[in-house]
């Protein structure tokens, strides 16, 4: 304790949470290295908001990633000060433009070689330069769309680019996934640091892919897809995550067919045109016919289609020509020449042996430099700062190899990257050298850099993966940046639409069932009610709504505490709350790229809440859990309303919500015997509870018809049947018809029939009898089901992608 208090009195650690102070006492940053957290024993200002939070939050966070088990996460993020980030951001944006300009020239006029005197070997000795990609390249307007950069901080404090990755820039999917994991685990810290959201940049990328696809002149409903390798490939987890975030299906080469210069996805319903392909596999593996006859992956004919503008491929096939160390020494001059700007962010000092003098220098300093392959960046995900040599040659063998084919080698100054705090096994903090993987993407407004990325901590044998947070300490950014999907043209593929529609339905169903269970729980908690009939009501309801009403529940009358818990958490019950929430999360997860991040976080927190169900053994615990769920579900609803762009996906989701609502409310109203007639006060009370209308009970009781009017006829009341019908009609109006679809017209007709029927019924209410009301409500519910079926048939298909390990088709 004594040491503890003496530490906290250090001026450099003022305001830091005692748990951090404690841990930092054993941190042990090397005095010679640049440490990201500490500067001469003082915490750098941009880390302070994080260090004011308890370190226990970080220690308690789960550290396993969804991907391969050997890839471990370190929940402690890597922080970059906002001012510093702006220089990195500007540097990488410039690099993206520069590399694109170089790639365009290499596959086009080659003026850089022919007129500007850059050495021909830069292109022709480059094994990633594929001559077959050159014919038609310029006319196709192809451009880089996704770039990754590895960066490290040199001991002088400046950042160096260790590698440019333009061939298969891996890691973006993992970065986005890691962000969600980290922010979820460290909610308070994320708030305190005001972590910038990647949504805006990602939306721009999605829009750009869509736009480039449109520019090929393929039909309007063409797909944008990811071209990936099979699930055995080490990068598969990354690809899948990226697909989920972008909302594009993940295809393999043999899912594609090329016909008359256009590309199609082979779906169960035939060939669907593909407008744009985000290429995640190596260029060599894209087209076995023209590029690599020995490779069986890829789609034969794809290259020709791409160069004839039949499809937009991003990054263009062959784009690996501009990655690799050979280009490094030329980048400053290329930047001046092509962009008329000085290069903002330097590469590591590099000597390419394709030049005589440089080769001599490398041979002279062979033991001091990191010598490796000059062309083609390092493969894979791990940010290994030491390049691999071809044939793994060392010493004299390497010297001979360089002398034989000098242009294949480059030597560069080794870098000791800065250190950052890492959580080690026993919960201690230790400094570990860190390199960053950052991303730039093309958007309709130019290249933009993803705010965040991955940090690799070389922590012992295994490297650990960290999230990168940009920490803005200026007062203007005290509040977290609103994280939402920017208004824009999110691409709603069929599967995406399908998921959103069902997401809307599940969300509504979950909210209503939470309310029903809560009502039931309160009934049980109040003890046996005086009127035994009242206790039966919710039970009847449950069975009517097919929610987990078990056979013994029905036979023994009202369930007890244990019975309720069973009803809630029985994973075997198809419609148990737990299964419903799981389906909600599953549908949401697949499309979380277009859900506002905050909404997704709320869904994740629901998931976490339901994970704790095993702790619930008492009624009070169950009610507490239900209260929490109700709150979070409302939050999801509200966040979606707040921040979702009003695109096709939004209206589909809304349509799902109102159809579900109409069906649920019809069932409830039927069960309660809602009719234009007086009601039993006990039922009325419960009904009000179910609809969260407790405050208006008095008004209901005053007028016998009030409940009927409020819950069925009043179109201005958001919980009335008429209101749902009208909303269904409105959503259908907002949906644009798909090609050759008469379904939308039918659905609209069905909706107006529904509205008319309800209006008629309300007009003649005096004459209505109980069973008449019941018939009317059933008929309305049937109409809603019919609309749902029509919409499903129109927009959705069971599958547009071949079944993958995580593809279970559409949930129903």
């Amino acid at each position, binding site marked *: 304790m004594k040491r503890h208090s003496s530490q906290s009195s250090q001026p450099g650690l003022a305001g830091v949470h005692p748990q951090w102070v404690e841990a930092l006492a054993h941190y042990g940053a090397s005095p010679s290295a640049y440490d990201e957290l500490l500067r001469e024993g003082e915490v750098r200002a941009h880390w302070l908001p994080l260090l004011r939070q308890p370190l226990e939050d970080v220690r308690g966070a789960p550290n396993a990633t969804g991907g391969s088990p050997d890839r471990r996460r370190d929940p402690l993020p890597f922080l970059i000060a906002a001012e510093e980030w702006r220089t990195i951001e500007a540097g990488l944006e410039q690099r993206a433009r520069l590399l694109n300009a170089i790639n365009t020239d290499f596959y086009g006029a080659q003026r850089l070689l022919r007129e500007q005197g850059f050495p*021909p070997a830069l292109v022709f000795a480059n094994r990633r330069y594929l001559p077959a990609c050159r014919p038609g390249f310029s006319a196709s307007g192809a451009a880089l769309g996704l770039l990754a950069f590895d960066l490290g901080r040199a001991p002088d404090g400046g950042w160096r680019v260790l590698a440019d990755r333009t061939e298969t820039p891996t890691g973006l999917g993992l970065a986005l996934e890691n962000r969600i994991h980290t922010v979820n685990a460290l909610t308070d810290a994320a708030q305190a640091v005001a972590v910038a959201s990647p949504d805006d940049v990602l939306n721009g990328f999605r829009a750009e892919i869509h736009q480039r696809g449109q520019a090929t002149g393929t039909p309007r409903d063409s797909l944008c897809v990811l071209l990936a390798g099979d699930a055995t490939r080490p990068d598969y987890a990354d690809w899948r995550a990226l697909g989920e975030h972008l909302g594009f299906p993940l295809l393999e080469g043999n899912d594609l067919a090329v016909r008359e210069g256009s590309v199609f996805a082979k779906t169960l319903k035939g060939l669907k045109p593909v407008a744009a392909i985000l290429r995640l596999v190596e260029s060599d593996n894209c087209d*076995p016919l023209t590029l690599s006859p020995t490779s069986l992956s890829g789609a034969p004919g794809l290259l020709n289609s791409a160069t004839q503008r039949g499809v937009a491929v991003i990054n263009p096939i062959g784009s690996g020509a501009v990655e690799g160390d050979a280009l490094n020494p030329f980048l400053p001059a290329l930047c001046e020449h092509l962009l008329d700007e000085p290069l903002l962010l330097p590469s590591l000092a590099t000597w390419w042996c394709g030049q005589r003098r440089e080769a001599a220098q490398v041979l002279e300093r062979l033991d001091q430099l990191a010598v490796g392959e000059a062309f083609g960046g390092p493969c894979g995900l791990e940010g290994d700062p030491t390049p691999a040599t071809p044939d793994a040659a060392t010493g004299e063998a390497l010297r001979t190899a360089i002398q034989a*084919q000098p242009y294949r080698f480059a030597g560069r100054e080794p870098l000791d990257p800065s250190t950052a705090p890492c959580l080690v096994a026993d919960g201690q903090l230790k400094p570990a050298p860190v390199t960053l993987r950052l991303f730039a993407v093309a958007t309709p407004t130019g290249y933009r850099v993803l705010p965040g990325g991955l940090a690799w901590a070389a922590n012992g044998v295994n490297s650990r993966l960290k999230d990168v947070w940009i920490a803005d300490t200026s007062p203007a950014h005290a509040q977290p940046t609103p994280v939402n999907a920017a208004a824009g043209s999110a691409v709603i593929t069929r599967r995406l639409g399908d998921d959103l529609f069902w997401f809307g339905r599940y969300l509504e169903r979950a909210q209503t069932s939470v309310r029903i269970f809560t009502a039931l729980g309160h009934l049980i908690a109040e003890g046996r009610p005086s009127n035994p009939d009242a206790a039966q009501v919710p039970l009847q309801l449950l069975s009517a709504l097919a929610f987990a009403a078990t056979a013994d529940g029905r036979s023994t009358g009202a369930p007890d505490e244990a019975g309720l818990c069973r009803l809630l958490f029985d994973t075997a019950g198809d419609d148990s709350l737990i299964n419903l929430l799981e389906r909600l999360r599953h549908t949401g997860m697949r499309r979380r790229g277009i859900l506002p991040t905050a909404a997704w976080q709320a869904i994740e927190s629901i998931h976490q809440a339901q994970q704790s169900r095993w702790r619930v053994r008492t009624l009070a615990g169950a009610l507490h859990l239900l209260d929490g769920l109700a709150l979070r579900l409302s939050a999801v609803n509200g966040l979606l309303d707040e921040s979702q762009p009003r695109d096709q996906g939004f209206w589909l989701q809304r349509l799902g919500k109102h159809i579900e609502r109409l069906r649920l409310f019809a069932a409830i109203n039927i069960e309660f015997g809602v009719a234009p007639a007086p009601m039993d006060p006990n039922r009325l009370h419960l009904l009000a509870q179910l609809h969260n209308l407790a405050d208006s009970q008095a008004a209901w009781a005053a007028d016998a018809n009030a409940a009927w009017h409020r819950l069925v006829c009043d179109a201005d009341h958001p919980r009335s049947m008429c209101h749902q019908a009208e909303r269904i009609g409105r959503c259908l109006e907002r949906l644009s018809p798909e090609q050759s679809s008469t379904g939308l017209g039918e659905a609209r007709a069905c909706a107006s029939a529904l509205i008319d029927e309800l209006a008629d019924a309300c007009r003649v209410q005096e004459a209505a009898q109980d069973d008449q009301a019941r018939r009317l409500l059933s008929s309305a519910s049937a109409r809603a089901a019919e609309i749902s079926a029509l919409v499903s048939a129109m927009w959705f298909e069971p599958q547009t992608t071949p079944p993958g390990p995580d593809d279970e088709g559409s949930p129903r």
Partner: protein
Amino acid sequence: MTATLTLSHRTHYAYQLPVSQSRQLLRLTPRQAPGQRVLSTRIEVSPQPQEMATRLDAFGNQLTALLILEEHRALDIEAETQIELVPTDGIDLQASPSWEHTAERLQSPIDGPSWEAAQFCYPSPRVALDGALDFCRDLFVPRRSVLDIGWGLCERIFNSIEYCEGVTSVSTPVAEVFSHRQGVCQDFAHAAIACLRTHGLAARYVSGYVRTTRRHGAAEGVAEGAASDASHAWFSVWCPKFGWTDFDPTNNQQPRQSHVTLAWGRDYGDVSPTIGFIQGGGEQRLTVAVQVAEHNTGDSPPP
């Protein structure tokens, strides 16, 4: 003396199982090249392709792409070309620039032709340079004229590598040819190309047909009954003064009017006469038959 030839190149695939879809890329139409003029050309395919399109590839070769969606158990591709061979002037090999000068020029090209040649100076997918230096080091004496070296290389390969069918395949690495000293025309050409490129010179792979042969080879499978003419391959070396000059190491000769050029590229991979991608088929058997027929009246058109 001008000669007119009719070339017929028949490719036949027999499949064990039905093929539901077949996509083929053909380089069976002779390209534009010095000393030859294509008079007419046609390609017939059975079964009838759903798509058939021609274009030029990255090296200016004639490419025909076809797609067959009809189920089939056999595929026949017949290419027939009428071509006129025009005599070219012989050149004095000794008068070509030195190999050092040529290599220097290729490092810093100054005009269209040298830029065009510069892309053929480096290892390519099927021509790694391993083993080449030891095979030819002594030929590259200082200031020796580059075409004289080309000729020397042609002789060296002819004399030290045994022409031997069935030992190598289309994917045999050049290093293996240098160590085993056996191969067919394709290996001979690849070996020469590796030797030239390892010295910074531009060398390209040429595919085509030969009229009169002492020895010959078939690139992709042996013609049944050992037809007297078959697909052939040789190499070409570049120098500033004379441009590209062909050498045929299989026959130890300089192809002049005796050879018809089909296509050229960095190595066999850039020019293979047929590349296919099929669905189904099981085991397949390939037979290639090439005929070169000469029209004796072609030399002097009536006035």
